[in-house]
């Protein structure tokens, strides 16, 4: 009994002594630091994600407080920038909040597969042997991005496609680095239209591999010049796109996040149905509009012809009149 007691006492004693010593010396050896470092650190998201290039939020705060030229915190976005500017008493540099976007909507049903992969459990290995989809740019769905996400913003749903929840995403960019196919992009959070495809293959090849691939047809860029086509792939670069743009895409690759979330556009059959109906409606309207314009044109043309006839008669009459007077 006494043995246990001495053991407990000694151990507690050593622990207590160490604790007291530490707390005492923390005051003795207190180093005065710029108080703004603590304030800035508090204003930061505190995820220590390293997206800014520093080792952690504390290092970033130190750099800010010593007024080094550092880029804005990409995770905190403009809100944090404003807060930091208040603390530092300077102008906030504009930082746009970025979120990750997986640019693929090729679920299992919509894509052609090369075969079954057995015994592989991560995207990196799968990508080494070319994946199981015909398309080299198709999301493999093993979730390498999901496992590196510090806030669990990425999930793999039934369609075996990784989808980022933009409301949860902090924009650290770790998933972009983790994806062996490079199909995850950082996009401004304010952007409302995305082309959900990364394939740079030629149109015919894309069509063979996937029902929802971008074939680089450039029709969308005619609706909205913010769509830029490079290497057979359209990328939306604006903020708010023309609401009709998704409807003109022949393969339904463009999502308008003002209407559908990326998740529902990729996964939900209902959303797809709704989209198809809307597209149908748009097409009929367009056809009617075109018919109307054509009809108007025809009418105008006839009218012009008629008036020409009248003019001719007038000229004839006046000519006759003159000849008679002569």
């Amino acid at each position: 009994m006494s043995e246990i007691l001495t053991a407990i006492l000694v151990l507690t004693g050593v622990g207590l002594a160490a604790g007291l010593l530490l707390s005492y010396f923390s005051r003795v050896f207190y180093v005065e630091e710029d108080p703004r470092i603590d304030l800035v650190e508090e204003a930061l998201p505190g995820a220590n994600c390293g997206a800014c290039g520093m080792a952690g939020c504390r290092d970033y705060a130190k750099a800010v407080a010593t007024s080094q030229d550092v880029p804005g915190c990409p995770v905190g976005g403009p809100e944090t920038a404003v807060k930091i500017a208040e603390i530092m008493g300077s102008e906030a540099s504009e930082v746009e909040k970025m979120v990750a976007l997986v640019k693929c909507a090729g679920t299992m049903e919509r894509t052609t597969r090369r075969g079954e992969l057995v015994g592989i459990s991560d995207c990196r290995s799968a990508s080494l042997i070319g994946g199981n989809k015909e398309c080299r740019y198709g999301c493999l769905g093993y979730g390498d991005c999901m496992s590196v996400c510090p806030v669990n913003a990425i999930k793999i749903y039934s369609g075996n496609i990784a989808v980022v929840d933009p409301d949860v995403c902090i924009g650290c960019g770790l998933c972009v680095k983790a994806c062996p196919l490079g199909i995850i992009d950082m996009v401004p959070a304010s952007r409302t239209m995305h082309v959900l495809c990364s394939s740079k293959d030629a149109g015919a090849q894309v069509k063979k591999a996937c029902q929802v691939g971008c074939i680089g047809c450039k029709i969308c860029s005619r609706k909205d010049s913010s769509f830029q086509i490079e290497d057979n792939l359209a990328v939306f670069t604006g903020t708010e796109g023309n609401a009709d743009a998704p409807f003109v895409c022949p393969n339904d690759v463009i999502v308008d996040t003002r209407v559908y979330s990326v998740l529902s556009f990729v996964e939900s059959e209902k959303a797809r149905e709704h989209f198809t109906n809307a597209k149908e409606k748009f097409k009929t309207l367009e056809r009617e509009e075109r018919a109307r314009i054509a009809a108007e044109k025809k009418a105008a043309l006839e009218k012009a012809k008629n008036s020409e006839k009248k003019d001719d008669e007038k000229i004839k009459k006046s000519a006759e009149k003159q000849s008679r007077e002569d």
Partner: protein
Amino acid sequence: MQYLLLAINSVFIGNLILSKFLGICPFLGVSRKVSTALGMSMAVLFVMTMASTVTWVLFYTLLEPFGLEYLRTIVFILVIASLVQLTEMAIQKISPALYEALGIYLPLITTNCAILGVAIDTIEKGYNFVGMLVYAVFGAIGFALALLLFAGLRERLETSDVPDAFKGAASSLIVAGILSLAFMGFSGLVPG
């Protein structure tokens, strides 16, 4: 003479990393550049000497009289952790330059098993105070030697043409193994 042999023994024959396999984590973690390896080595030398001294004193003044030798490990861990904290604070106050130089390595070695390994080993082997000091200092020098050798090798590997499959960690581990083999060759250098 006895201490000279002990010193040679702890640097070459019983090298902490290469023949006792303690402190493998910093060995692989901070050996990418010679400069960081040097910083880490200095921090280890500093902490190892201090930690061994304090734990040695504590063991013979507190644990042994009470017959609590079996509490060795847990007490040592406690003492080493708070000691490193304390040193960090003290250095920050007294010598900011040194604090900047040691930087992140100081808190990192709180959990370095080489520190605890040496502290326990000195007790196990029953060294006296001077023996303990020699063992700790030269153990740390052996650690530094291995770390610097490895960092130098890795710096060269970085620029050499290595087959894809062996790039990075793979070739590093192979090099570590060969280095360890080479150090095994020292055994028998000192009799006993």
